[in-house]
């Protein structure tokens, strides 16, 4: 429960995770080395993936549904996330609020999360309690019971969550607008948590309709990481999940193609609550699924070389050599079923403005497009990404999350497992080619938060 009193100097990578609403894990999406996870499918269509790690007698049990905020119908933004909250409100067998209490009583921790392309529920618990949480998770896959008594206060909770995440945070509110500008009418342009004026109208019936349509075993994937083998898991999966009948057709996600901006967009917001400006830019980019096969692993290396860490080009140039920025970063969001994006982030030193910062970022991008990347920095970036895959194996939850996110966004377990090897095979020419894809002939969305009142 210890919580440090003040923020020490965080590397800006840590700040970025707080700032960017996207995914915190597995920038590379891949992990590997060691044995590949075992996968199998139950007769009712539910997929299963096992990631053994026998260091401690503990398991992470997750059920992922192939449905997320991007699958909501117009006017009902926030419904996928709202239902995620309501899944803890009880079934015919479990009283409202009891789900988490039973998990806790058994020494476990539980939670859930919603993204554009998936919704997932998990428990971390002693290995011998695995059958218990499987039984309870299977139970709420089909027997959810909701009444207004529980649903309506929870809707207020979600609105408080939105206030905390977005309304109280000027940079998050800016990113919300930038996503809308980048993705247009595509659902990636909405807020995952939903828009306040639509959350307020969500009903018990909306939640149950969504649940009936999408929460079915043929639309779900079980991932268990930790002290379990595939041989041990298979009979348990068949006993608890395999007996559930399909209750809706498998959901085939067919979304309209993203229409990228037809011209550069700039969103400038003045906010009296901030004293320090922030600069962000989003470029259209394919996701791991939609990118050309040869391009896929090169985006990660581009992000690492351009602005991944303190040895990256942007950091060396803007922070160290020119002294313009206090922090600068680039990142690639490829874990999307549809296209992703490539992001740039910079904050000036206390006495600096955004114009000169933006010019300096653009100059580094131009230099990379002009001369490509050199062999040394490519080798270093590969080492960092490969080591990240090894370090990820230290944490069973990180592993389970990385595989789940990959599977939900169109990758196969094998592709995820082999990702670090594919990264090693990337050439200087590959990085330059994807850099051109991102930066040439595209229209970006630039966002700025500035101190003061709107003019």
């Amino acid at each position, binding site marked *: 429960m210890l919580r440090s009193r003040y923020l020490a100097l965080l590397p800006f990578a840590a700040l970025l995770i707080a700032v960017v609403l996207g995914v915190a894990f597995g920038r590379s999406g891949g992990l590997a080395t060691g044995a590949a996870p075992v996968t199998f499918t139950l007769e009712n269509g539910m997929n299963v993936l096992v990631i053994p790690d026998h260091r401690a007698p503990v398991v992470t049990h997750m059920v992922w549904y192939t449905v997320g905020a991007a699958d909501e119908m117009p006017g009902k933004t926030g419904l996928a996330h709202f239902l995620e909250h309501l899944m803890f409100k009880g079934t015919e067998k479990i009283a409202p609020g009891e789900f988490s209490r039973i998990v806790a009583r058994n020494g476990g921790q539980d939670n859930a999360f919603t993204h554009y392309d998936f919704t997932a529920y998990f428990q971390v618990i002693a290995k011998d309690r695995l059958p218990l949480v499987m039984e309870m998770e299977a139970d709420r896959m089909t027997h959810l019971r909701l009444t207004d008594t529980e649903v309506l206060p929870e809707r207020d909770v979600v609105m408080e969550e939105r206030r905390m995440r977005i309304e109280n945070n000027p940079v998050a509110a800016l990113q919300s607008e930038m996503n809308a500008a980048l993705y247009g009418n595509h659902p990636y342009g909405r807020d995952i948590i939903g828009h306040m004026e639509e959350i307020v109208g969500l009903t018990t019936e909306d939640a149950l309709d969504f649940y009936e349509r999408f929460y079915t075993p043929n639309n779900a994937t079980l991932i268990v990481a930790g002290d379990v083998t595939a041989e041990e898991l298979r009979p348990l999966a068949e006993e608890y999940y395999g007996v559930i009948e399909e209750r809706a057709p498998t959901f085939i996600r067919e979304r309209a193609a993203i229409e990228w901006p037809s011209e550069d967009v700039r969103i400038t917001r003045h906010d009296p609550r901030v004293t320090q400006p922030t600069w962000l830019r989003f470029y259209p980019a394919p996701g791991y699924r939609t990118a050309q096969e040869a391009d896929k692993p090169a985006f990660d290396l581009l992000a690492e070389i351009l602005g991944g860490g303190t040895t990256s080009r942007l950091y060396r140039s803007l922070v160290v050599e020119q002294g313009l920025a206090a922090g600068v970063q680039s990142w690639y969001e490829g874990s999307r079923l549809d296209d992703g994006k490539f992001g740039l982030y910079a904050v000036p030193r206390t006495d600096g403005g955004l114009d000169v910062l933006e010019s300096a970022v653009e100059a580094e991008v131009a230099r990379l497009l002009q001369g490509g990347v050199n062999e040394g920095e490519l080798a270093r970036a590969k080492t*960092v990404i490969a080591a990240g895959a090894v370090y990820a194996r230290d944490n069973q939850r990180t592993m389970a999350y990385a595989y789940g996110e990959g599977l939900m966004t169109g990758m196969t377990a094998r592709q995820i497992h082999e990702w670090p090897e594919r990264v090693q095979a990337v050439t200087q020419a590959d990085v330059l080619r994807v850099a051109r894809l991102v930066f040439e002939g595209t229209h970006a969305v630039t966002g700025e938060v500035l101190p003061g009142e709107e003019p």
Partner: protein
Amino acid sequence: MTRLALAILLFLVAPLAPVAAMNIERVVSPGGIEAWLVHEDSIPVITMEVAWTGGTASDPTEKSGLANMVSALLDEGAGDLDSAAFQERMDEIAASISFSAESDYFRGSLQTLANERDEAFRLFSLAISSPRFDEDAVERIRAQIATIVARNRDRPDWIVEDTWFKSALGDHPYARAGEGTPESITQITQADLADYTKRTLARDNLKIAVVGAIPAAELGALLDKTFGTLPAEADLPVVPNVELPERGEVVVVVRDFPQSVILFGSQGLLRDDEDFIPAFVMNYILGGGSFSSRLMEEVRVKRGLAYSVGTYLDPRTHAAFFFGEVGTKNERVGQTLGIIRRELASMAKNGVTEAELDDAKTYLTGSYPLRFTSNRSIANQLLGIQIENLGIDYVERRNGLIEAVTQENIARVAARLLKPENLLVTIVGKPDLSTDSSLPERDDMAPAPSAHPSEAPL
């Protein structure tokens, strides 16, 4: 239906598994440096966590932020490697070395692939024993910290905490922002940085935890190489002990946020207080258990007043705090605080039920093994146990201490700790306090700008 009910019942009475059967070795190097080690070969990674007593509370008042600035500079050039060379070397072997300054401790952290072990430990050793503090690196880090200092002052969670500590502790070192102030960080010189490092990073105030693919015999020699050149003894300033004044107060910092961010707190218990473990169990029932606490039930589940609400104990070396936090829209602040005060009063008066205590025990004992599932989390546990002087057998003893807590213990500690009338409450936002009928009568409760230092124009 019966099957599930039966399963749950069975699990309730079944004994929980023991904490992971891991072997904690006390390794003492030929040169006399001690580390706790868990040798774990299944992934080719080594993690080391270290701590020296002497954190931000040791900073000179006019140079607050000194320890933090040192923590940011140790990997910015050391030995014959300048900043760029040092960082490139770390990237080449994909090692991660970082430092941080907490109020009572200066922390170091190393993660390396097993096959790069010797080079990673060499870099770590260079960083702690011969940091360069080159002028260009110092000025760059100073500018970065200045930016963080300024940006923190835009954040409601930072403001609410800063306001709380300054209101509670005045000019005690714990009330200073650990990263310094816009003024103080300009006062820090190269000589200050070198002096802090020499006085603080010594051998007699150092604790070390190592987990991963390294046998005890090899760690011994590595410890001497890594830490052997540090001074034998630290030379730390005296930080006074402090108790919180018993007075309730509400301090509002008016900012235009739709959700008020609220921190409430009062005197807590030191880690070696005999009531600490009962207080820890009490806190779980009151507001520590994420989805199972009384505050979660009353504030979030029943009334939808907040997304997150919780309490925690924060024992430091020289003071102890009991804290709670909640965020709710401005219109409902008074109502929310009223409910929280009522719950604190109720537990202080009536303690907890037998069922609540049983549930708390099965959670707290059953979830203890979850803290030992990764090399990194194990290293942090081993370091924490050393810092608090709990003994190398603590992992085995700990669940027994929880099991021994009685309802009477909790009733006593609740009455001692939970005094809603003594809460210091700080709020950032534009709160409506009107329905909080239990507030003491004070002028500064009105939602108007207070004269608090953090209200000064920025």
